[in-house]
């Protein structure tokens, strides 16, 4: 094998310019794919992290029908204490669940005493909410950042609302809400802090203490609109979702349908569609890479066979078995693939390293000054490398087969 590769290497060096051009194409393709995967992968991970760690959590449990009507935040579809307890018990049984947080969500009017606007309010248990969405405290751009997320009588509002309503930390505001029975109630709050905007649902929500929310809505029982769940390992999402759905499937309403629903973050966030689009684009760019390698290697190998027909006739005449001739040309394709892959990987890793040393700052939707820190896993690099080498081998197969099947006499007569 070493003999074959050594001679294959010499043959590649014979047409230096052509070999370099082919290698360059493979390198460009490799760099494009690896950089795309690194950048989009990091962007995706960062956005998913933002969504799961500062708003949604990894999973949410609602009463059936709540998500379908989520735009109106229907109070009549809140979970009753019995259902909340059932969810709590089920979550206790699942190791991968790190923590969970009950929320009371409702639409309300926000007033600074001169102007009024609408607001979506989350009534949360400050300690459990901070543990379930740990990036949320870090999103406070003004006001208190330490201590409890929000105290009783305090409200956290998004920056857009603060600017629009010209209110600041420490100001007193009024939140007016309609309860389930249709009666209106109002309560004053002091603005504790202001959060930065974030794209997606919940990105512009305000936060108050869950007891204040129940008080404002005049709830007689400790109802909950949703339960957000944080997993210790997000990779377990699919498994935990299945386990939880099974665990909560027992209870049913009079129509014999499950009372509770479990949704993953991807089912609740429109960003999941964007993530799917990114995955689709990754597949597309991989197809482009395969095409580049296939066409360039096949082209160079077809030329190599055509230009060396007499030489192939000579080595066949002196007794080189067809299988050895086949392996000689496959060896050339293999070397092109391996060298191209090695160079492409090295260049890609260097660029990724440089992007981490000199990071790129960008804005996405409401979020400003996001830092792009691309990274790529060894398995992903190995997968792409194997694909390129495999395609290079595949591209050389037909020319190599042709070379091995050449009739020595015809080949020796070739001019």
């Amino acid at each position, binding site marked *: 094998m070493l003999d074959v590769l050594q001679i294959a290497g010499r043959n590649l060096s014979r047409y230096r310019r052509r070999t370099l051009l082919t290698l360059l194409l493979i390198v460009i393709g490799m760099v494009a794919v690896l950089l795309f995967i690194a950048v989009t992968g990091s962007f995706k991970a960062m956005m998913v992290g933002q969504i799961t760690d500062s708003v949604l959590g990894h999973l949410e449990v609602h009463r059936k029908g709540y998500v379908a009507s989520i735009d109106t935040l229907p109070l009549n579809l809140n979970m009753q204490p019995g259902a909340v307890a059932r969810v709590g018990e089920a979550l206790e049984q699942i190791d991968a669940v790190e923590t969970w947080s009950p929320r009371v969500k409702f639409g309300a009017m926000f007033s600074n005493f001169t102007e009024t606007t609408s607001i979506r309010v989350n009534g949360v248990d400050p300690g459990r909410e901070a543990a379930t969405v740990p990036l949320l405290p870090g999103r406070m751009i003004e006001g208190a950042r330490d201590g409890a997320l929000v105290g009783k009588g305090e409200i956290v509002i998004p920056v857009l609302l603060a600017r629009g309503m010209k209110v600041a930390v420490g100001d007193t505001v009024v939140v007016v809400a309609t309860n389930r029975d249709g009666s209106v109630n109002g309560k004053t709050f002091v603005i504790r802090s202001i959060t930065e905007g974030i794209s997606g649902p919940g990105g512009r929500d305000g936060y108050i203490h869950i007891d204040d929310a129940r008080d404002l809505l005049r709830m007689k029982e400790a109802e909950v609109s949703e339960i957000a769940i944080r997993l210790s390992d997000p990779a377990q999402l699919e498994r935990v979702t299945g386990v939880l759905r099974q665990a909560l499937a027992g209870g049913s309403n009079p129509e014999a349908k499950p009372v509770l629903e479990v949704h993953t973050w991807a089912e609740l966030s429109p960003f999941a569609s964007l993530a799917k689009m990114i995955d689709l684009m990754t597949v597309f760019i991989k197809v482009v890479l395969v095409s580049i390698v296939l066409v360039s290697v096949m082209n160079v190998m077809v030329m190599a066979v055509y230009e060396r027909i007499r*030489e192939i006739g*000579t080595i066949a005449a002196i*007794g080189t078995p067809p299988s050895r001739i086949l392996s000689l040309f496959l060896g050339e394709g293999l070397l092109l693939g391996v060298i191209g892959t090695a160079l492409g990987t090295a260049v890609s890793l260097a660029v990724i390293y440089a992007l981490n040393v000199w990071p790129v700052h960008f804005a996405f939707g409401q979020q400003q000054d996001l830092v792009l820190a691309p990274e790529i896993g060894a398995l992903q690099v190995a997968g792409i490398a194997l694909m390129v080498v495999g395609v290079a081998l595949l591209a050389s197969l037909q020319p190599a087969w042709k070379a091995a099947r050449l009739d020595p006499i015809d080949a020796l007569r070739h001019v």
Partner: protein
Amino acid sequence: MSLVIASDLTKIYRAGDIEVPAIKGADFVIEPASFVAFVGPSGSGKSTLLNMIGCLDHPSSGTLTVLDTDIAKLDRRAAAEFRGKYIGFIFQDFNLVPVLTAYENIEYPLRMVQQWPAAKRREQVMRLLTAVGMEAQADKRPDQMSGGQKQRVAVARALVSNARMVLADEPTANLDHDTAYRIIELMRRMRDEFGTTFIFSTHDPKIMAEAEVTFTLEDGRVLSRNNQQEVAHA
């Protein structure tokens, strides 16, 4: 025991419906360690005969036995193996692998065809390089060698795997007269040193005079056999 025995050997090429007979009922015998020339004008069938003796082509009819093997029965792979084991080739255009040095070209059959161990390979290649007087040019590539030097390397390559027979199709056609003589002389010396049978084709009357046995071909038929040694003894 004869090395090559041809009996009523015929080769017909077909191009569509047209049949072109290249060899018409040839009979001849070649003995081991002989120095044989097939001579005749272009198109007389010299190359076709050498191709069949070299297991590169099959007869259309008749029998051709080389080293007790009926070459008509060899398939593509077996023919390649047979050539690699017993037959060396020298070509008119030298046909050295351009990316390999003289040493590597000679080593090629041992490395890629027979897979000799490295130490034994080196010993054999050096022996042949010395035998053809090319040890000083061992590291030169074909584009750095003269025509005569290239053909010396080709002779060494043909002999390196201890071939029983070397076939040379017009080996001197691309060489000047002096160089051509030196190559023929080298081939004869190699025959003496290694006991290898050399069979070559030529249409150069001066070169054909150097052969010990000459078969004259014309229009696909072997017209005569002339043995210089028999003539000398007579």
